[in-house]
């Protein structure tokens, strides 16, 4: 009871202070539009919007969540207000879940903005919405916890941002969006297989365009595994680093 009250307060505060601030809202809209335009311009032949939807959605989530955690966690650490949370009578697990839930929700909302655009521009019938939602949710959770892992390792906001790019860009190029996986050079393919985004994109490809390389349950398990491990490793690091 007491914990849930604190949980909602932390979530509400983050929403109000960070997520619902104009720069973040507009960012959530501009980002997917730019991606979509980029895809259009890149290809010589007209593309089906629906084919690029999984990629745009996945990247919106990835960039949205990881950027936000650099602010909600690293920034609060710098300004010491994070200490106030550590000093509150809430378990560390609960506290970190409260801090990350905002980013997960933000990521999910970001993912569906391109879907709203696509709805007016193309035919979306036949999409498996169930798996689309599950896929988006898992991508949001995994990238949020990846962001958490990064935020815990960084001491400055810019460090967290730089460090995120170290993960984000390879994932972007290797997840099978720009180039189908089987066309990637053989020596980079293993990297592709260890990156969580690859599996997230694959779920969306399966549910939206009915393509996809892996069996869906494999992707689900891999993403779940990633989420749990990233969270646990981050918690371990927090206990070691922040409760020094």
């Amino acid at each position, binding site marked *: 009871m007491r*914990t849930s*009250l*604190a949980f909602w*307060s932390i979530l509400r505060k983050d929403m109000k202070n960070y997520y619902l601030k104009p720069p973040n809202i507009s960012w959530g809209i501009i980002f997917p539009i730019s991606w979509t335009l980029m895809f259009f311009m890149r290809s010589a032949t007209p593309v089906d919007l629906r084919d690029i939807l999984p990629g745009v959605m996945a990247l919106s989530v990835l960039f949205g969540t990881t950027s936000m955690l650099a602010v909600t966690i690293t920034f609060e650490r710098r300004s010491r207000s994070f*200490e106030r949370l550590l000093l509150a*009578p809430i378990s560390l697990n609960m506290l970190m879940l409260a801090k990350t839930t905002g980013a997960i929700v933000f990521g999910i909302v970001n993912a569906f903005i391109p879907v709203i655009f696509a709805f007016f521009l193309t035919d979306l019938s036949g999409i498996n919405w169930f798996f689309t939602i599950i896929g988006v949710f898992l991508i949001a959770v995994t990238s949020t916890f990846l962001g958490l892992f990064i935020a815990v390792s960084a001491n400055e906001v810019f460090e967290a941002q730089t460090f995120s790019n170290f993960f984000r860009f390879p994932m972007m190029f290797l997840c099978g969006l720009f180039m189908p996986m089987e066309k990637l050079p053989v020596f980079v393919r293993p990297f592709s297989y260890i990156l969580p985004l690859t599996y997230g994109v694959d779920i969306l490809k399966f549910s939206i365009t009915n393509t996809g390389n892996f069996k869906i349950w494999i992707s689900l398990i891999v993403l779940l595994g990633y989420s749990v491990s990233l969270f646990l490793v981050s918690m371990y690091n927090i206990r070691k680093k922040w*409760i020094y």
Partner: protein
Amino acid sequence: MYIINVKDLSKSFGDFKAVKEISFSVKKGEIFGFLGPNGAGKTTTINMLTGLALPTSGAITIAGLDGIKNIKKVQQIIGIVPDESNLYDEMSGYDNLVFCASLYGMEKARREKRALELLKQFSLDDTGNRPFKTYSKGMKRKLTIAAGIIHDPEILFLDEPTTGIDVESARQIRKLIKELNAKGTTIFLTTHYIEDAERLCHRIGFIVSGKVVKISSVYDLMNEAQQENIMEFTIDQNGEDLESALLHQFPHVAIKQLSPYSIKISSVEKIELMPFMRFFEEQGAIVSEAKILRPSLEEVFVKITGIEINRLKEEKEGKKR
């Protein structure tokens, strides 16, 4: 009777021992002060007591609970005011307080009422709607204290509550601390300022280079400071003429003529003011001023720590600059 018990508490950062096997106890209802120079380990000790740092070894008991294993329970009954504010810059004073209250599970109506109450009590009601970042240093410190006591903690930890703010704000804060204590809150504070320790604390622990070198009540410290009791009288006639009569009546005192009309009387034994007043009256001298010189805690501090106060202050100010 003891609400905080600390036994052989140590904290190392790598090879460096910041806190070295300190032991002390804080009585329920008292104001206990940790007095020590920069880098003595005051903040590190508070961090261990409040759950922000994990001791390398030793035991902490707070209100009967294990302060290491049960820290989340302990945190429910303690309030913490850090040396630098840790509130949210963008949020208003009021919102900050309400948010802090919710961390302790206070219901909406109760936390809003309490936040307004505290803003009023701390004379911040006019500025409650302004963002915290627009507050002055003194206002920030006050709001940070308000946030620390929003849930009516049994024990309040204050890390250097009066450092870096002006005289008037410091005075207000000392008053608030005393009022809180009068209502039953046990207070643990750290300070550099001897004057603060003296004015506020019931008992003082001296910490130097990670070691508690002495724990004593202010009263005992005073007595120890100067084994001598000193009084000064200003009278309307030349004191030299009275010297022999004085010595005759009070054989155990030492007399020193500070100026023709001012006499200093000292004794290793306890002396009272009244007998001397009566003596002067009998001698037909009118006393225009009589004072008991209080021994200064500063001297005790120097004696105990071997550190000159001025150096201490300079160091501190240099650091804050």
